[in-house]
């Protein structure tokens, strides 16, 4: 009770302090030459924020909606405070923007270059990542079903799968560019190679996950292979399949961006990063990183959301 009351008082105070510090650090007398007093103020804010957040995370409001709000509050404030520290330290200490631009500078650049970012997003994410992801995951899934049916394929393919998934993306990307040209198909091909085997391995494991009792049940109904597959084995395999989909959602983005370092038309997130680094405009690089992070998180979040709906019955989601 005491702790939570302290949090309710401290949180607005800390927010006000942060706003004041942000205002102060950008004034010409402080920026780049902040004195000891300023840093002491930041440390006090830091402590206040820590106490406030620990209090907030202990809040247990009776109302369900309020509890949801309180649950959201802590991670949002925590993240916001990290950005605040980044901004204050970079601006206050006058860190060169080549080493580390301030979040405000990155944000400004992001907004100013929206058309470029959108073109890069369409090229890299929509064309390379999504098409490669869909083809790779679907192919992995279908081959897993075939491999499950034909034992020699399973024994032959799984070691090969481990071998190929151990190949570095840096190694296969130039080869794919040689095979499929400079434009997005070669990047999609890299994504296919990267996403195929996690899906294959997970689906094969998932198809073997149904218990003996459940199989005996289907056997006693004289259910055939396809009926057993659809009514029992695929539902049991779903959590494994979604696991692969989540792993692949991040792998695909990495693969496509890295692949663009090896020959590409003059558009794309990987292309932009490599070109802007050599032009020393690091804020643009950071803007691309922010774009990749946002796109990747939303992608992962959507897959996780679908997973929750499809495998609501799994012990990890049951309510």
């Amino acid at each position, binding site marked *: 009770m005491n702790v939570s009351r302290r949090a309710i008082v401290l949180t607005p105070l800390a927010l006000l302090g942060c706003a004041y510090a942000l205002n102060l650090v950008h004034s010409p007398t402080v920026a780049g030459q902040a004195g000891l007093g300023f840093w002491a103020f930041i440390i006090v804010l830091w402590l206040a924020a820590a106490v406030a957040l620990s209090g907030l995370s202990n809040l247990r409001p009776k109302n369900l909606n309020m509890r949801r709000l309180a649950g959201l509050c802590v991670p949002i404030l925590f993240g916001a405070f990290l950005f605040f520290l980044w901004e204050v330290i970079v601006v206050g200490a006058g860190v060169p923007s080549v080493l580390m631009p301030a979040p405000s500078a990155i944000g400004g650049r992001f907004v100013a270059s929206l058309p470029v970012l959108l073109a890069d997003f369409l090229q890299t994410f929509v064309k390379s990542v999504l098409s490669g992801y869909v083809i790779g995951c679907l192919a992995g899934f279908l081959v897993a079903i075939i491999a499950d049916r034909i034992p020699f394929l399973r024994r032959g393919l799984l070691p090969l799968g481990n071998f190929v998934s151990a190949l570095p993306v840096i190694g296969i990307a130039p080869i794919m560019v040689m095979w499929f040209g400079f434009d997005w198909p070669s990047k999609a091909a890299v994504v296919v190679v990267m996403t195929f085997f996690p899906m294959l391995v997970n689906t094969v494991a998932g198809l073997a996950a149904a218990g003996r009792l459940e199989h*005996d049940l289907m*056997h006693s*109904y004289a*259910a055939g292979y396809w009926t057993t597959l659809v*009514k029992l084995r695929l539902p049991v395999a779903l959590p494994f399949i979604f696991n692969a989909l989540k792993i692949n959602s991040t792998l695909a983005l990495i693969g496509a961006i890295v692949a663009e370092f090896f020959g590409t038309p003059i558009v794309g997130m990987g292309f932009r990063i490599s070109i802007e680094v050599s032009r020393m405009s690091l804020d643009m690089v950071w803007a691309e990183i922010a774009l990749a992070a946002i796109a990747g998180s939303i992608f992962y979040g959507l897959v996780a959301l679908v997973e929750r709906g499809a495998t609501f*019955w799994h*012990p990890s989601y049951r309510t």
Partner: protein
Amino acid sequence: MQLKGETVLKRVAEDFMGGSGVPSGLASGTRPASEAPPHAPVVDIKGLSLTYEAADGPVYALSNVDLQITEGEFVSFIGPSGCGKTTLLRVIADLEQPNGGHIHVNGVSPSEARVRRDYGFIFQAPALYPWRTIQKNVELPLEIFGLSKAERQERSQRQLELVNLKGFEKKFPWQLSGGMQQRASIARALSFDPKLLLMDEPFGALDEIVRDHLNEQLLKLWDKTRKTVLFVTHSIPEAVFLSSKIVVMSPRPGRIIDVIDASHLGRERKLEIRETPEFLKIAHRVREGLRAGHSYDD
């Protein structure tokens, strides 16, 4: 209660007549037990044996088993762990293959009987699929057999009513207690009117009070549906309370050492009969049989 039982009985009988290609054998359920045809046992086993290879030599799971079960009987298989009672049930259900001997179920091999969908198997665990509601679980075999949606719903409603699970159709298995889950699995087994109900220690994981309750319900169900029930257990009171015939088995090698008739206890039994001298006499004979089987080992 009596009236309700009769209507259910009639419905079940109609079901067999109307059911697609199901021989009318079970319609005899409407006749008193004494009138049942004396020929052609439902399960006919002669000289059955089953051996499997373990790391330290062969295991004789079943050795020279002879057994005949007539229609409408409630037969319990009792014995210590490893006596082959579950294996015997699984052989009848075509879930294991014997090495020798003959076995016929309704005049055909177990595998043909299985393909004909003669078996309702109830396992130690409910084995309900967690992604299906209780109703959808009960409808699972009906879906596999290709019944129409209306027919499936009508049957699942009726079976869930029969096992007192009305009102839980839309719940998921993990939202129900263990006893309710096992009842749902019984409803699932009954939903397609199998000729034989095979139960492998179905109440073994439940506490004694729930178990007593389910035993009473199972007897009522047996009386209403007139099914042939094969029931594996290692509880003497459970075996004597439920059965019209008790098969006592002993391990290493798994074999039958006694077959006890308990039909004189009647079809309708209350839990109180467990205190009566007739009940205790049968229980005593079962215990004697189990002890004799054990002394073989030592």
